[in-house]
């Protein structure tokens, strides 16, 4: 057993969240097939360590912006599976009352400024939150999650320039899963190492093993400390792999079975389980206890979603504006 700065409680908590993300995705995929969930799903199976490791390094009043592949980010930032599942099922009890769905889940009280249906759409928003924190002299950090594909969008470059210029307390967290939708990274980006893009914006560019939750945690913690000190933003590129398609139903003709099988040998959830037992001396019974809680929480989440009411059609007109003009058709 190695020397470790991590308590068993923290390690089990990380494992709990990773297992929760994995199981949430698998259940959501099943429930979509079963008809409970009407919309499409971009699952983050295989990317649990990035979401969980990064959010573990944030404080509860720090904020994140997420992506179309955002279920893991939300859970890791404190999102409750029952309200998430209810949102996927388009029920009134969901995070957005059934108006947002998978792509737009939001909970401001948890610092989740929104998943996003537009690639790179959340990056300028997180930058603006960081600007507000700096302006108000609040020791808070804004973290933008995005994929490798987003680093080819103009919004990424404009936002990083702004953050670098103003030394904003922001973390730009790239989950490099090697594919932007159905096209591999080497056919999208002019550079091989995406972290070098940080140089152009006067911030550190850090590459980390995105399937190692502790490595992700450490890199994000360093970036968050730096941001809170007033030293400015960091670009983190976490290398990981999207085990499933861009969306559920993606025929995945653009990559080989061998490649996918190979990456399943580096699966962050079982890998961390093995490490907990072998490296950190966590007991099998502690782990199975966590796994039991995960199963129970998702049984409850699915049942909660299925039992929740669907919205009345005319409620579609509410929620556009914050004042008395809301609900009026004009």
């Amino acid at each position: 057993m190695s020397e470790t700065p991590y308590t068993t409680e923290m390690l089990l908590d990380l494992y709990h969240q990773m297992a929760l993300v994995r199981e949430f995705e698998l259940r959501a995929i099943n429930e979509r097939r079963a008809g409970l969930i009407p919309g499409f799903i971009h699952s983050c199976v295989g990317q649990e360590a990035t979401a969980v490791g990064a959010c573990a390094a944030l404080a509860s009043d720090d904020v994140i912006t997420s992506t179309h592949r955002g279920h893991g980010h939300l859970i890791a930032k404190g999102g409750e599976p029952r309200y998430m599942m209810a949102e996927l099922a388009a029920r009134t009890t969901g995070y957005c009352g059934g108006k947002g769905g998978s792509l737009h889940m939001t909970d401001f009280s948890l610092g989740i400024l929104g998943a996003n249906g537009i690639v790179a759409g959340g990056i300028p928003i997180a930058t603006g939150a960081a600007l507000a924190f700096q302006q108000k002299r609040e020791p808070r950090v804004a973290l933008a999650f995005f994929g490798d594909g987003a680093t080819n969008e103009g919004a990424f470059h404009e936002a990083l320039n702004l953050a670098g210029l103003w030394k904003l307390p922001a973390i730009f967290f790239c989950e490099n899963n090697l594919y932007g939708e159905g096209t591999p990274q080497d056919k999208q980006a002019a550079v091989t190492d995406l972290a070098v893009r940080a140089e152009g914006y006067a911030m550190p560019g850090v590459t980390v093993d995105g399937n190692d939750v502790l490595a992700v945690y450490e890199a994000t913690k360093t970036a968050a400390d730096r941001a809170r000190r007033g030293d400015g933003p960091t670009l983190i590129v976490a290398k990981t792999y999207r085990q499933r398609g861009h969306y559920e139903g993606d025929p995945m003709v653009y990559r080989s079975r061998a490649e996918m099988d190979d990456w399943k040998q580096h699966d962050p959830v079982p890998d961390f389980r093995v490490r907990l037992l072998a490296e950190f001396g966590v007991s099998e019974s502690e782990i199975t206890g966590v796994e039991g809680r995960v199963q129970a929480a998702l049984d409850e989440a699915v049942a909660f979603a299925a039992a929740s009411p669907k919205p009345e059609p005319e409620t579609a007109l509410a929620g556009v504006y914050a004042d008395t003009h809301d609900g009026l058709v004009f």
Partner: protein
Amino acid sequence: MRTMTYSQAIYETMREEMARDPNVVLIGEDVGAFGGVWGVSGDLVTLYGEDRVRDTPISETAIVGAGLGAAMVGLRPIIEIMFGDFMPVAGDQLVNQVAKARYMSGGKAKIPLTIRVTTGAPGSAAAQHSQSPEGWFMNVPGLKVAVPATAADAMGLLRTAIRGEDPVLFFEHKMLYAVQGEVPDDADHATPFGEAVVRREGRDLTLVAIGGMLPMAMQAAQTLAGEGIEVEVVDPRTLVPLDKETILASVRKTSRLIIAHEAHKRLGPGAEIAAMVAEEGIGSLDGPIMRVAARNVPLPYSPDLERFVLPQVEDIVEAARGLVGYRL
């Protein structure tokens, strides 16, 4: 009452609101030391510092997105986009992010974001610096669209936008900046959205004049009065929300409707107003609904060509004569 220009009214409002609330900030290209490319922000950076009056890179996407993110966590940003023509550069942030953030969140988000943007042709600025994009954004639910035509409304509508909880596109017409007008002394003078105002009463014809067209509409009404045609000029002040009732009430009185705007005629704001009156007030009409608007070509550089393309006072006068003389 005080007299000041439309531009000063906007400046005064920003100055007062920044003094009143430390969360109000101004962010945009050249808003600081330059004082705004149209001179509107003046010495605000001297008064409130570079932190609160923040010059940005030429990055419209980042500016709008940063305004949105800052609004989500407690600031009340005023964003300036130098020309309305540049709004498509920030298209995703405006249309997919700012406009929809509240609705997508199930009505939880408050987005107190004011986006000041210039509109209209300042003369030989050609196709990428002269457009009137108000109508583009009327088609995007979630945004409010203000089109002040006087100094008092520039002040009153801007104050409502800054103190409100929704994103507002605040269109400042370039040719109105230097126009003087009376503004109330009340430091809390705020003009509610969705309340049109009748600028001139008349029995023969309703003329809805949007933004920069108001002075031309008043001039046309004066000319027509000399011919015995009494024009009622309605200034909607905001296009979203739109005060349908004031427009419909005027049409019930006059039985005739002309809509004048500088935006292109095809699917400009007048198309929506015409359709609304056709749906809800056609029984009152004694003739076709007319639109006096820019011809459907990009704005040309040559003063002669530009004048031909843009709506003029005489275009309103001619349309009014034709409509009053119209027989079913």
